[in-house]
């Protein structure tokens, strides 16, 4: 990996989008954060390479609009094509760099382990709930009911299944149910009456 020669006072991990990794997870994936990422880079590098080539090909196939007598340097496929090339190059660099790091098998094992931890399970559940709500419930149920069901299930799953010391069941169900109905009704009323949005 290309570690930049940085000022020692600079942040350990640079800064950017996400909240820097705070309370360390005790899963196997945080033993050495770099190792599983190296293998992830190989995969994403290859995906980006393929994507880049696909974009270049599609841009090449784009009509050149000769019939409209446009200037040949202004064809619609010009910029996407250049971007595709750039993406393919970046993908190649990522993949090549990952290959260069000697692999003793630990990289792939860590990479796989990252998908089997509790954290991964939490993410998958959150993702499934989020998708189920937006793709299945919304549009089928009235919006307030869909939202209420989602909020209720979300709270129940994370407070019951993933919690080390859950409250008594009746209490969770009661408070979560109350919150779910309030949120569902409030959001619907505010948007439909206040902002005149026709909710799905």
């Amino acid at each position, binding site marked *: *990996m*290309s*570690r*930049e*020669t*940085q*000022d020692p*006072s*600079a*942040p350990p991990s*640079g*800064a*950017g*989008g*996400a*909240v820097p990794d*705070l*309370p360390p*997870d005790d899963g196997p994936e945080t033993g050495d954060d770099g190792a599983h*990422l190296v293998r992830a880079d190989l995969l*994403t590098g290859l995906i980006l390479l393929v994507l880049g080539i696909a*974009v270049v090909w599609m841009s090449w196939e784009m009509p050149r*609009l000769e019939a*409209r007598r*446009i200037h040949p*340097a*202004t064809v*619609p*496929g010009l*910029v*996407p094509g250049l*971007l*595709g090339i*750039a*993406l393919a190059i*970046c993908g190649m660099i*990522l993949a090549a760099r990952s290959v260069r790091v000697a692999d003793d098998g630990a990289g792939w094992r860590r990479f796989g382990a990252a998908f089997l931890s*509790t*954290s*991964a399970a*939490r*993410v998958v559940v*959150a*993702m499934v709930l*989020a998708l189920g*709500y*937006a*793709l299945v419930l919304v*549009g089928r149920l009235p919006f307030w009911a869909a*939202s209420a069901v989602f909020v209720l299930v*979300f*709270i129940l799953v*994370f407070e019951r299944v993933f*919690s080390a010391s859950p409250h008594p069941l009746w209490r969770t169900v009661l408070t979560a149910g109350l919150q779910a109905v309030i*949120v*569902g009704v409030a*959001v619907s009323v505010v948007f439909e009456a206040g*902002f005149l*949005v026709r*909710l799905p």
Partner: protein
Amino acid sequence: MLEGLALLGDGLAHFMTLGSLFNVLWATLLGIVIGLLPGLTATMGVALLVTLTYPMAPDQAILSLMCLYVGAIYGGSRTAILLAIPGTPASAATTLDGHPLALSGKGGLAMGLATTSSALGTMVGILCLVLLAPLLTEVALNFGSYEFFWLALFGVVISGRLTAFDDPVKGYVAGILGLLVAMIGMEGLHGFRRFTFGMPALGGGIDLIPAMVGAFGLAEILVVMKRKVAGRVVDASDRVVPRIRDVWRYRRTTVRSGVIGTFVGIVPGVGEDIGAWGSYAAAKRKSAEADRFGKGSLEGLIAAETGNSAAIPGSMIPTLTLALPGSAAAAVLIAAMYIHGIRPGPMLLVENAPFLYQVVAMLLLATLAILVLGLMLTRVLLRVMTIPRERLMPVVYVLCVVGSFAIAQRMFDIYVMLAFGIIGFFLREMRYPMAPLVMGIILGTLLDVNLRRGLALSNGDLTPFFTRPVSAVICGLVVLSILFSIPVIQRFVTRLFIKDRGAPTGGG
């Protein structure tokens, strides 16, 4: 100059109505709350609020968004101090000294100084905004297609270079992906539909707001839910309102951090988080008590909080004068301005000069509001911080779904939000920065149209892109920042400097 002051007075007077002040209060308070809650960032808050401000008058809508932005960047400091989790990425540097201060029983002092520093930082930034924006506008009025092409490319490249966690290539990849997203839909020169795969909904392109709600909302929710343990709030019972003496003692740090923060803010797509880190690093280098940094140094806390707040007005400089977003949240603000019929760019001062000064007035009002609210509402805000994420995140997600749907009232935008959320989450987990992606989406059209228009104007000749003076300079910057991300060249240059001066130079 005098004319500027008069316009500024007009701008302030413009918002001296009960309705406006009410908007300032609720928007700033909402901003602080959003900033406080880990998982809710300024960018996402602004993106969601765009939907809610849709029916408002343009000036009031932008006022609310701006107040929310300032409030959120400030609000993050409180969580950083008491919980050791940055409420927004911008306050990551604040945790280093803020949390040790809270642990040693000085939580109140830390919160107070964070508040005054944020206010002072914004003031420094506002001063620079007033001075620099008209100058930059004058220069920018001479820009043609060639310059705008380079500016757009520069925005994406520098953002990719500087916001990447450890690997600039990942920053560039994020930028390129953003630019490719912008290619989807009808292109601006010949009206040809690119990459629509026969789907009519894609013809209009991908809207920035649902994409941002996904990348900064859903993705962030997933990141928050992934963590197993939540932090514990440290109790802070000492005096919150800081003494003037404490503030005055660190005036040099404040001014330096403010200027650094502002200039970091000016750099396209590089925002508050880097502003904080930059001024923190500079303060540490200059400080007499450098060894205290990271162990509860007031100076470090002040530097970080001044730096991130100063970056907000700083980021408005390119945003207003060039339509080149100075930060990720500013990109969403640009989208909001277009929705409300305000066109940022070099023509803004010509067509709509009062607006620049209205923005200045908005920032001033927001600064006042964070001072008042931040120093008064410590207890209430503490309660907000303890809302469990299991209860909060599903509500936030419902708002993400409604928010992305409401603007155009079509399901397609919800799908966009979902796609960006899930892809954004995986990119984030693999340490790709999100800011260049945003820059790419918003600058893609500018880059595409101006490159091809420039080529048409020069009849296919590339030389004007390199020979016009401003073009040449920006082109040089682009090439340099790409070259500097190649490790071999970087090492070579570093060695060169060590030989020349006998000591390594600190980058800042």
